[in-house]
Each structure stands twice: as structure tokens, then as C-alpha cells.
């Protein structure tokens, strides 16, 4: 579905090294790695936001509908939630339905800044769904939420993935625990410049534990 052949990315000094990978439909990738290593940089590259990376390096991107849950909600603050969803192509009815599916039934006429952080993030997730995405990109979706809200959002996202088996997901996180719930494939980004140190499919029982064990050994501070 998507083939990455990224040669690298520098911000003054090289941040990202070569990244070669193929993403298939139904892949649920958790992108792990120490903070500041370039996970968001890689996610932006995959999203096609990085103008310094040629389009050929992200083969297949053009044909994909992408929903990107940024760290901030990035809804247009001067438009209601419903209008924000309609701007990416939803009909008013679809907008209401998507909002309801993330637990914001009846909030269509609210402005983004009227919402709490957790609600705004769910509204932004609803916008991701409104584009009927082939690929869902999530940048630290559980950061700065309290444990209860984070848990709810995790269940919500897992549910979305289960009902849309063809949808692929890449979720940036630095919490190995997220991967246990969401992932069927793990990427670990590390090094200077950063490369995918592992790219493992999680299938057999026990594999995820061993991966997480390796992760803790490599990076005890971050797990």
C-alpha cells in the first residue's frame, strides 16, 4: 500500500537516516523510540508534509486518504466541530455520526476551544475518520491525558481499527503498553541518525512480551 524509501532528513545535523519499509493494509504499527529521536519527523514524512523529501520516497502516498491526529487538535478554532468535519468532506449527517462515534454526540455546534483537551482530541479523531482514511497517523494520542481518559481513547481507537480491518495505522508512542493493545507490528526508531532498529510483526503469543523486554533493556528510562 505504501512503500518508504526515505534517504534521510537533516535539521542542521542528520536526524533521520535511511528508512526503508512497506506498509500494508491492516497494519497496526506502533512506532516506539526515545523522545526527540525523530518519530514525529518520520510521521510527517509519511504524511507527505516534509517538502524536502521527494514524493518517490513515499511511494503510494498520493493514492491514499490519510487521517492525521496531531499532538494538538488542529481543528479550525473559528469553525464548529461539524463544520470542521464537513471541510474534509463529510456531509452534515456524517459529521454528526462521526462525532457520536467518538463520544461527542450533540457537540456538532461547539467550537473547538470550548472543549477540554480530551474532548478536542476525540473531535480531531472524528475528523480523521471523516476522510474515510486508508492510513491513520496518530502522534502521541495519549499524551497529557489522565489515565482514565487515555484508557478510553485507547479502547476507542482499538474499536475503530477492529471495525475497519483494511485501515492501516501508525501510532507514535513511547509507552510500550500502548503497543500491547493497539499494535500488530512494532517499529523501534533509534540511533544517530535514527533508523528503524526493528520492524517486527506481532503474531505469535509471547512475541510482544519479548519485544517489550528487549525495548526495556535497550532503553530503560523510556519504558
Amino acid at each position: 500500500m505504501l512503500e518508504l524509501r526515505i534517504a534521510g532528513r537533516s535539521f542542521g545535523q542528520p536526524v533521520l537516516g535511511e528508512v526503508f519499509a512497506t506498509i500494508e493494509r491492516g497494519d497496526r504499527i506502533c512506532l516506539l523510540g526515545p523522545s526527540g529521536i525523530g518519530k514525529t519527523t518520520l510521521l510527517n514524512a509519511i504524511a507527505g508534509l516534509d517538502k524536502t523529501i521527494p514524493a518517490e520516497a513515499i511511494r503510494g502516498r498520493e493514492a491514499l486518504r490519510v487521517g492525521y491526529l496531531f499532538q494538538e487538535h488542529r481543528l479550525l478554532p473559528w469553525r464548529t466541530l461539524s463544520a470542521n468535519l464537513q471541510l474534509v468532506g463529510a456531509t452534515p449527517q456524517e459529521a454528526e455520526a462521526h462525532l457520536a462515534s467518538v463520544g461527542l454526540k450533540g457537540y456538532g455546534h461547539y467550537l473547538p476551544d470550548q472543549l477540554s483537551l480530551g474532548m478536542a482530541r476525540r473531535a480531531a479523531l472524528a475528523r480523521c475518520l471523516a476522510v474515510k482514511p486508508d492510513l491513520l497517523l496518530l502522534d502521541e494520542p495519549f499524551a497529557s491525558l489522565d489515565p482514565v481518559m487515555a484508557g478510553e481513547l485507547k479502547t476507542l481507537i482499538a474499536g475503530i481499527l477492529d471495525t475497519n480491518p483494511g485501515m492501516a495505522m501508525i501510532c507514535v508512542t513511547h509507552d510500550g503498553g500502548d503497543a500491547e493493545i493497539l499494535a500488530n507490528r512494532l517499529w523501534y526508531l533509534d540511533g544517530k541518525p535514527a533508523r528503524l532498529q526493528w520492524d517486527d510483526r506481532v503474531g505469535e503469543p509471547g512475541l510482544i512480551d519479548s519485544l517489550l523486554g528487549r525495548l526495556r533493556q535497550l532503553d530503560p528510562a523510556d519504558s
Partner: protein
Amino acid sequence: MSQSPGRPPAWSYWVALPSFVLVWAVVAWALNSPLLPTPLNVLDTLMQESASGELWHHLGATLGRVVVAFILAMLLGTAIGVVMGRSRTTNALFDPMLVLLLNLPALVTIILMYVWFGLVEVAAVMAVVINKVPNVAVTVREGARSLDYRLEEMATVYDFTRWQRFREVWVPQLFPYLMAATRGGLALIWKIVLVVELLGRSSGVGFQLHMAFQVFDVAAILAYSLAFIAVVQLIELAILQPLERRSSRWRQPEAAHA
């Protein structure tokens, strides 16, 4: 000094102007000179000019020039400002020109336009536009530089069309700057238009002021000034303030309760 919270008492707005008119009336009555007519004289002149249709003819001519010059200056200035704010190269190319135009006295532009193109309407409006465009461009450029890159990325990911990006992402962010340019712009254009009319047109408030000056008709000068101020205020109250309120409603919403 301590400032009491809330709104000031209603009467406080009705002190300065009536006192001023009263002082004016007393001084004019005491001097009894045609060089300082009483408020009633001025009102009388205003009525006569209004009844004869002269006032409306000249106010209309001035207003027409202001509107045309304003629209042209805003469109041009906004386009230039956005492009310069978004591209460093364009900015570097045109910034010296902008500085030159900003420091060019309005009078010079007006004279040159009249000399080169003759005492015609196009020259008059062009002179006003050239004076105003740099101010708009500089203000809008400031806004274009502060556009939120995070919303730009969002618009890119979600494949916003050019029009959607402009209408939904840029304009709301540029709005305070456009409003500032509009206010500053109108204030400036009003004044320049009068000079343009004084120097080379045969209609408009500026032209009438010129005629009144020739014969030292102070009552007419004041009458036209008053009418002019009234129109400017009317535009402020009827157009600018409602527009500003409408477009900044999203800024202070009440919080939702989940």
C-alpha cells in the same frame, strides 16, 4: 489612580462635546466675527447646502473616490502583503520599494499623478491607492508571517483546495490585520482624498473646502467638515464595528461541560 471595574456611567460620554459646543458658542458670540461663526450659523449653512443638493453631490463624489480607492488599495495591498509574508525571496526583492513608497509624501504622489496623467479621475484615485497600498501591505505582511504552520500542515494533510485554504485558514488568521489595515486605511484615505480633490478635481468635499477657503467662508468649511465627520462615524458604526464583532465571536466562547 484607581479604575472602577465595569462600564463608565452613561452620562460620561455626554460631557466633552456639549461643553466644547457651548464654549464655541460663547466665544463666537462674544467675538461676533465672520471668521468664527456660531454653531447655529454652521448648522444653518449645513441645512442650506443640504437643501440645495450641493452637500450631497460633493459628499457623494468624495465617498465614491474613497470607496474605489479603498477597495483597490486593500486588494492590491493584501495580495502584496500575503506574498511578501509567505516568501522570503519576494520580500527581499520588494522590501526596498516598499520602504521607499512608505516614506514618499502623499503630496508628491498626488502632484506627480496629476502632472503625468492630467487632472483626471483616474489620476486622483491612483494617487490615493499608491499612498495607501504600502501601509496595507506592511500590515498584512505581518499577519502573513504569523500564520500558524500547524494549521498549514493540517490543510495539506486534508487536501484543502487553494480557495479553502485561503477562506478557511488564512482569512480568519489575517482578519485582525485586515481590520487594522481597514481602519488605518480609511482614516488615511479620507484625508488624502480631500487633498486630491483640493488640488485637481472640481467636485468633492476637498473641492468645496478649497472654494470656501478662497472666500474665507468659515461657516462652509465647518459645515462640510461636520458632514464629513458624520459620514466617517456612520461607516464606523454601521459597517466596521458590526463586522469586527461578527468575526471575533469565536475568540471568547463559553466552555462546554461534558
